[in-house]
């Protein structure tokens, strides 16, 4: 069974569960890229964090912010450079649980302020 699962991957469910953590968020976004080589450089930070922590970072931590930042980079890639399909930011964020969505909005605001200064 595990051989079949590894060959066929996970089939799409009709109702996907909400994305709860920043790690799940980054994993979800990365899985949507058709060419993993294009996003590999964004995922270096994710690999560092998962190698250190082994699980999702606590909410509000620097690692959490770093993962949300990676998600924003992936979102920009998916909505502008993904070669085979059209994504929208609102469509990507539909599956996010409300608390995670709020954290993402805060991170996005903080990133915009950093860029302006």
């Amino acid at each position, binding site marked *: 069974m595990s051989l079949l699962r590894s*060959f*066929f991957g*996970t089939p*799409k469910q009709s109702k996907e569960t909400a994305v709860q953590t920043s790690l799940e968020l980054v994993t979800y976004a990365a899985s949507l890229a*058709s*060419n993993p080589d294009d996003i590999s450089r964004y995922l270096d930070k994710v690999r560092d964090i998962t190698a250190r922590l082994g699980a999702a970072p606590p909410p509000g931590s620097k690692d959490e912010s770093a993962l949300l930042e990676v998600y924003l980079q992936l979102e920009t890639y998916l909505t502008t450079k993904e070669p085979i*399909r059209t994504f929208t930011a609102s469509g*990507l964020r539909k599956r996010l649980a409300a608390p995670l969505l709020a954290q993402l909005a805060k991170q996005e605001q903080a990133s915009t302020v950093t860029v302006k200064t």
Partner: protein
Amino acid sequence: MRRIIALFTILVVAATLIIPVPDSWHDTAQAFHTYLAVAGAMAGVYFGAAWLFLSSLSAYKTNLRIAYTTLSVGIALNAIGAIQLAIISAFDLLGTFWVQSGGIVLPFMLSGLALYFGMRAFARLVGAKTRLTKVGMVLPCVALFSVLSIFLPHAPMDSPEIVEDVSNGILAWVGLLDLAAAGIAWRVRQHIGSHYTNAIAWMFMALIGSFIVVVLALIVALAVSGPSGTPDLIINILSVAVGVLYAQAGYAFHKAKDY
């Protein structure tokens, strides 16, 4: 959507059962309707699969739409080729211009090319690298082995040697292109993002299934002299099973447009 395809297939099969047996038919009425029913099932699942691929187009960009459309054309041509064989055989149309001029091979030749080029376009889009996408290497090899297939030993046949040679050559052409497309699908499955793994895995299964059916058809063509009723029926039933795999691949690609 799968229910619509299943219903369509059942309706087509039911329609074949009411077609009157022509005078030219050489076997029992049951054999006639079984033969046409299997051809009808093939039409249902293959055209259904092509429709599933085409129904996914809205979510994708132009280049992938072209790849999907090419794959759909290949799947549909496969069905057209099989259906024409069934009609020609059932209604004794061997003497027609379409058969005598060799037009009968066109759907099969074009189907193999469309499936190969469709998978090749898909692989190049997602950055999956494989030598099987090199047209300059693959097509000459396929052509060479198709020609060499005429030298395969075979049982004595009723039909002229040239007819058997061309038929075997076409089977080799289609089989090798299906195999090349399956090889590309395998490489794409290893490379592509996990969101698409399920869909491309089904596509690989369908292409490998197609190759296996062609190999079996070639073995029957070489080994069986005279009418090959039961082996042909088994091969046609296996073709229907391959059509179901194509339909499952189309359904999985259709689901993949959701995120």
